[in-house]
């Protein structure tokens, strides 16, 4: 039974040091950015600073929230293979409690406190006279923004916490046997359904419209929310893969093997293709119809300062996963999977960069120290708090009714 002691994660000192270092670098970048850009009095520099905070906080929040989506969707599908690694997405999803309020403060600051019409054009008084925006003001107004943002983040936190609370029962031998097991699965199904419904109403539709698409207040795309969802979900799966590999390398997670990693890799591969499908569906129809009010979104991205980033985005997020992750052996290889996971997360971070900053500062593009600094803060927070959450529970939900099925999983 000596192996079982390895089912309790202990935070290595090196990991703690790295995470704290990254957080410190992020805080430093934030302060420097605030002084040089945020408080500089120049509207453009200020918008750039706030935009950087916005896309980073939204991206990392949605990536961590995607973990809870993964748990809920596999629960609803009666999936069993993920049970052996389930504590990892659970730990990642605890970050919603932290990134949720951070994103909330930033977004509410922009809309309610700062009233920044440089970012959200629909806030300005001109919008009331604008024939296009007039029709959208029922949805795009500060009151609705505040209510919906509060509800979205609040319920993600609440429903996610419910799922995690339920999962604690799987550490208790009382769950053994048919009756408790059935009741456990049923309660999981109910909670997961609630989360999925709310997820569909927020990440799957309204929240990307409200937070990001409305920066281009005149423009709209029906693909936008799914595109955002695909982006965050594939990065979320990559983040899970990174943690699985990390823990395996440290000798934890004895029940997870390359079969489980293979399935995570399949998600990374499949959703990279799905993301491209949505990317293309959005782009091709607008390119083909060539209507000025629609092409305004792509003009400076395809053929302007964002050209490099725009095509880099496509290469990193489509061509690389397609060619590298296609082979079965690649999805079972720790090195390749680590490389691809980092690349995919970076690629979708770039994607969010061009989605938000491409609309805020159309005239020039450039990823600067500020972007990397703020991202370092969020990465540091993920390392620190995921480590903490992992250490707080056993790494294997030992008495989960599907545990055996997960152990003998074979792809």
């Amino acid at each position, binding site marked *: 039974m000596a192996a079982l002691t390895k089912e309790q994660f202990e935070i290595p000192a090196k990991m703690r040091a790295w995470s704290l270092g990254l957080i410190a670098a992020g805080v430093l970048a934030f302060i420097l950015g605030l002084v040089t850009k945020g408080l500089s009095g120049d509207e453009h520099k200020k918008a750039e600073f706030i935009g950087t905070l916005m896309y980073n906080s939204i991206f990392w929040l949605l990536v961590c929230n995607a973990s809870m989506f993964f748990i809920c969707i596999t629960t609803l599908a009666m999936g069993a293979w993920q049970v052996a690694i389930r504590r990892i997405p659970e730990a990642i999803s605890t970050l919603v409690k932290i990134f949720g309020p951070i994103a909330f403060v930033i977004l509410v600051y922009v809309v309610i406190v700062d009233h920044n019409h440089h970012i959200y054009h629909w806030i300005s008084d001109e919008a009331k006279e604008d024939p296009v925006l007039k029709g959208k003001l029922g949805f795009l107004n500060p009151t609705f923004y505040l209510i919906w943002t509060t509800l979205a983040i609040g319920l993600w936190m609440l429903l996610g916490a419910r799922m995690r609370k339920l999962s604690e029962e799987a550490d208790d031998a009382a769950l053994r046997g048919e009756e408790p097991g059935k009741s456990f699965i049923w309660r999981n199904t109910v909670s997961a359904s609630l989360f999925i419904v709310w997820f569909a109403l927020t990440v799957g539709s309204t929240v990307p419209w409200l937070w990001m698409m409305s920066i281009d207040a005149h423009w709209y795309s029906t693909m936008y929310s799914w595109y955002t969802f695909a982006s965050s979900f594939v990065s979320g799966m990559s983040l899970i893969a990174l943690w699985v590999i990390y823990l395996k390398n440290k000798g934890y997670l004895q029940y997870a093997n390359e079969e489980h990693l293979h399935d995570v890799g399949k998600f990374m591969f499949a959703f990279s293709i799905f993301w491209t499908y949505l990317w*293309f569906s959005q*782009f*091709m129809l607008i*390119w*083909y119809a*060539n209507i000025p009010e629609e092409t305004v979104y792509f003009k400076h991205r395809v053929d302007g300062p964002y050209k490099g980033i725009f095509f880099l985005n496509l290469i990193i997020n489509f061509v690389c996963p397609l060619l590298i992750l*296609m082979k*079965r052996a690649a999805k079972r290889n720790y090195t390749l999977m680590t490389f691809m996971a980092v690349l995919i997360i970076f690629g979708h971070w770039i994607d969010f960069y061009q989605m938000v900053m491409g609309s805020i500062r159309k005239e020039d593009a450039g990823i600067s120290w500020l972007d990397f600094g703020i991202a370092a803060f969020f990465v540091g927070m993920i390392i620190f708090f995921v480590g903490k959450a992992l250490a707080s529970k056993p790494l294997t939900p030992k008495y989960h009714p599907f545990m055996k099925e997960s152990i003998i999983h*074979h792809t």
Partner: protein
Amino acid sequence: MAKKTFVVGCFDDEAVLFPAVKKTRLAGYKIHDIYTPFAVHGLDHAMGLRETSLHTAGFIYGITGTTTALSGIGWILTKDWPINFGGKPHFALPAWIPIMFELTVLFSAVGMVLTFCYLCQLAPFVKKHHFHPRATDDLFVMVIETTAKTNVEDLKGFLKANGAVEVDVQVAEPGWWLGRYDKEQQLIRDVEVA
């Protein structure tokens, strides 16, 4: 093709089948194939079959489809018969991608089906030898190929001792065309014991 002699052992339980497969390979007998009513997880591994290369073939068919579509449309719409569609450039790549995608899928799907039929030696009007009709119902049928050196009676006794409910000897044609799929099967005796 030459006819061969096969010893056929029928099992009624997977739990009996798996150890029997292992022992058969350890004893050095060559398993021709195992016919089961449903896909049995891990049986390919137990039999020592190599990974199929059907997906590699699929990938090659796929890129052939992509190339065919791209070069076909590209040649037609830029060189052979350029037409102005709504002011789009003649080389209108985004508009071609759906067709390139469809041809990729078509080529790889059709190609893989045909390859699969070839590998399993299936074709219209070809009658395959059935070793046991209940292989599609409730029996796991293990077929062992014999050579001149095989003692058939010993082998029958061996299968019985390992839990076969029915054992018989059949003479049949192993395949009807080029390329035997089981060519590269390794005997576990040679791999693990030696």
